[in-house]
């Protein structure tokens, strides 16, 4: 499976209720160190209840201008959350199903936290 197939896939909770669609995926660079960078590890999926479109970079807290665009894009992605890979039960062709009792993490990125 490639990432392009996963983006836009509906995300369901354990009971089959619709939560939104896959808007993005998050990686962390904490694997085996290589020459250029450490091996990336899939941290989890970003689920958007209203829109699976791009965040255009406004998932970062530090990016607030132009204020109007930032506000519109944040509004479009209101309620989006990050689910960790451990909380995902099945990644199917048609949908992604989460485990019961999954945790919703914030999708925001701090500027200093990302390389």
């Amino acid at each position, binding site marked *: 499976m490639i990432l*392009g197939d996963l983006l836009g896939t509906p995300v369901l909770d354990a009971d089959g209720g619709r939560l939104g669609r896959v808007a993005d995926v998050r990686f962390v660079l904490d694997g085996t160190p290589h020459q250029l960078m450490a091996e990336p590890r899939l941290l989890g999926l970003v689920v958007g209840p209203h829109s699976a479109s*791009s965040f*255009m*970079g406004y998932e*970062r807290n*530090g*990016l607030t*201008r*132009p*204020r*109007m*665009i930032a506000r519109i894009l944040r509004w479009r992605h209101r309620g989006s959350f990050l689910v960790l890979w451990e909380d995902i039960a099945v990644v199917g062709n048609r949908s992604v199903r989460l485990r019961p009792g999954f945790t919703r993490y914030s999708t925001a990125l701090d*500027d200093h936290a990302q390389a």
Partner: protein
Amino acid sequence: MKRLLGVALGILTAIGGFVDIGDLVTNAVVGSRFGLSLVWVVAVGVVGICLFANMSGRVAAVSGRATFEVIRERLGARAGLANLAASFLINLMTVTAEIGGIALSLQLASSVDYLLWIPVAAVAVWLVIWRVRFSIMENVTGLLGLTLVIFAVAVFLLKPDWGALAGQLAPTVPQQETFWSYSYYAIALFGAAMTPYEVFFFSSGAVEEKWSVKDLAQSRINVLVGFPLGGLLSVSIAVCAAIVLLPAGVSVTSLSQVVLPVAEGAGKLGLAFVLVGMVAATFGAALETTLSSGYTLAQFFGWSWGKFRRPAQAARFHLSMIVCLLVGMAVLATGVDPVLVTEYSVVFSAIALPLTYLPILIVANDPQYMGEHVNGRVVNVLGMVFLVIILVASIAAIPLMIVTGAGS
């Protein structure tokens, strides 16, 4: 001294390079039909292109990325590809219009049919792109294009009634025209002044000429002085048409009508100047649009690009430009009127503008790319105002095109 010379040269080429076939045709058409009642649109368009060129030049100089590299990174592959397809096709249309413009200008100078000039023009464009250094190419066409100043000179030689001309400046719809065609031509004029290729070219040129942060001041002067003066030049085309053609009831449909007021005001010598200027301006713009088609493709697909590389090292970049020239030639060989292609190309340019404007506006605000050189508050306020203007023009263009039968 050398620095001052560099600034002067930059300003002069910015003026001479501002006018292209789109400006020539649209300004003359508008002047002959609407007088000076749409001059305000040129002013708005010039402010817009200054803003857009300033942002994309700054992004290129600071981050080292040209427009389509930024679009690919920010929008991702899928949305980026849709964006590329639209921008590229409209640019190809502009390439076609510019080559047709060279051929028509040469026809005016030689009385040899323009269809025979088309292959000559296309081969000449290709040879220059293949062989001539970037800076020489820019400076020669830019300086020769300055001979179009004759339009401004002709305005004075025609000894118009200045009071009556000033009276036309108010943005009102002339009696014989409808509000819809007025709006349609407003968008066409806006698209002619704010053509997207200028921005692809400007930002890629910044990478070609290896700009860095310390060149920002000079590029800002070039843009902020050169473009408004270039805008005045294109307004003078409209003024010429408004003085001579509007009272005569001639609405412009060919390039020979565009130069008519100059011939009347400035005689044979003026005509010689205007012909040199038109060949230079359309040739320069043909180079820029052809290069822009190569730039956009290569930047999106990650091919090595640029005239600073030898053609063998940027083979796909050069090949794609050859194909674009051939396509442009093939379209013109069908006998379609280049003036008509031009009129459509400026409107479609306005339609496609948000596709490149929005990503540049966003990235120009991103400290990860720009560090301390992000947009200031004033630029952002202007940037948002223009985002609205550009969106309105883009959305309104197609319905207006249908309602007015493309302005006829």
